[in-house]
């Protein structure tokens, strides 16, 4: 038993403490953070607006945001390939509008992965934020305004703390999801931009290295769990402080 554990420990060390793994890990983190940031920037204002609109608008957005979740990630990535390719929608439009002289490479870069993951996980950020925004009472906001707070202060001191719980839920789903997503990064980023989950697949199906695969799987799990725990803790602290 001890021999087994120590043997595994050395495999783990060998897999993790090398340049390749570190660069893949950094990339995965980078992608996760970028997607989380983009999602926050997009979701917050939208949730704020929708959360205080008519029920019709609310249910419209809820449905619109929900539909992509029901579609296979393979299909969605395929759609992105059509949009982001060198001769795809985006490039054709931009060159037709003379905004670009020549088509630009988007596909097979980290950016393409991030866009795909953003589309994949945006609903998971939007929906919790939306419910949080719905619970925001109009009176609180009016009170703040009547006390002279500008929009930025209102946001920092009132909106953000009150919606923090929802935001943290969204963040944890996004970060965990980006570490674990497989189909989207593979199709949109290619083998040059590997993430942890792609590395795991590689070790199993291509490099046939079960020890390294287990080490990678463990790393993914540890990362996801620690991110979750960290965010939950931050959430509790922030709420207490208010």
């Amino acid at each position, binding site marked *: 038993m001890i021999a087994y554990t120590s043997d595994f420990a050395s495999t783990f060390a060998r897999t993790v403490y090398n340049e390749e793994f570190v660069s893949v890990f950094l990339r995965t983190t980078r992608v996760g953070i970028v997607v989380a940031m983009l999602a926050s920037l997009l979701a917050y204002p939208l949730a704020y607006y929708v959360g205080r609109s008519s029920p019709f608008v609310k249910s419209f957005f809820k*449905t619109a945001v929900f539909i992509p979740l029901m579609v296979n990630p393979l299909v969605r990535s395929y*759609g992105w390939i059509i949009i982001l390719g060198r001769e795809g929608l985006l490039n054709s439009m931009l060159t037709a509008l003379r905004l670009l002289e020549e088509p630009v490479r988007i596909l097979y870069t980290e950016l393409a992965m991030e866009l795909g993951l953003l589309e994949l996980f945006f609903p998971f950020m939007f929906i919790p934020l939306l419910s949080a925004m719905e619970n925001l009472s109009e009176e609180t906001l009016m009170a703040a305004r009547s006390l002279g707070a500008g929009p930025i202060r209102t946001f920092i001191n009132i909106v953000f703390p009150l919606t923090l719980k929802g935001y943290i839920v969204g963040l944890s789903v996004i970060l965990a999801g980006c570490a674990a997503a497989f189909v989207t990064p593979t199709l949109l980023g290619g083998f040059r931009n590997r993430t942890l989950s792609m590395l795991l697949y590689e070790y199993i199906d291509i490099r046939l290295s079960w020890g390294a695969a287990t080490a990678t799987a463990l790393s993914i799990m540890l990362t996801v769990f620690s991110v979750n725990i960290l965010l939950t803790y931050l959430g509790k602290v922030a709420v207490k402080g208010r």
Partner: protein
Amino acid sequence: MKSFFCVLSLLTLALLLSPIVMPLLISFSTFESISFPPQGFTLRWFANVFNYESFMNGFLASSSIALVSSFSAIALSLPSSYVLYRHKALKMKGLMESLFTLPMLMPEIVLSYMLLLFVCRALGVVSLLSLIVGHMLVVMPFGMRVIYASLSNLGVDIEDASVSLGRDRLGAFLEVVLPNIKHGFVGGFLTCFMVSFNAVSISLFLSYGEAVPLPIAMLNYLQIRYDPTIAALSAMLVVFTVGLSAVVEKTVGFVSGVR
């Protein structure tokens, strides 16, 4: 201000929905490659989808696997949700709750790998059963959540009332609780079905020779060809899953029930 929000919403909607709409547009193109803009109009690729045996088999395989795993997941979630719900004071409740939702927190790919390791490698069993069990594990938390939510909405009172009026526990359950959570039941089943139908990672690792699930059949097709048949198939899948979720919405109002 209003216009800013309008622009923002349009942008977001474009972001979310364009990848789903794109395959639909391309699927009618006569052009054999998948570039934009599409040219011409043909239904050839749709016909191709039906002609390709792997896709038809894949659809059947995915649907059957989804049916079986959803059914078993619901069958297991129902009693577990019920127990969790009834015995609120149960000390282990928090732990049990986390245990049941664990597969959802765990990345699907890690779950598939662990199954691969423990079931296939250790026991030397690579069979349809491991694939179904895998799907069931992935799908169960979703089912549990929906059923648990509808149980909570129901409240214990009705059941207690019927017991106090003389019905025994099991009868009360069957006659009072079940009919009232019918919506949750159906909604949960359909949600499980869709999650299983769309699950890629787990099918990738555990796929059993002849029963190739549809997403894997699609990936295999991309191995050997590159024409818009995939776009046509994607378009059909979109219609299928969106239609199914509309049915869920009608029966259960799942969207409004989310968080």
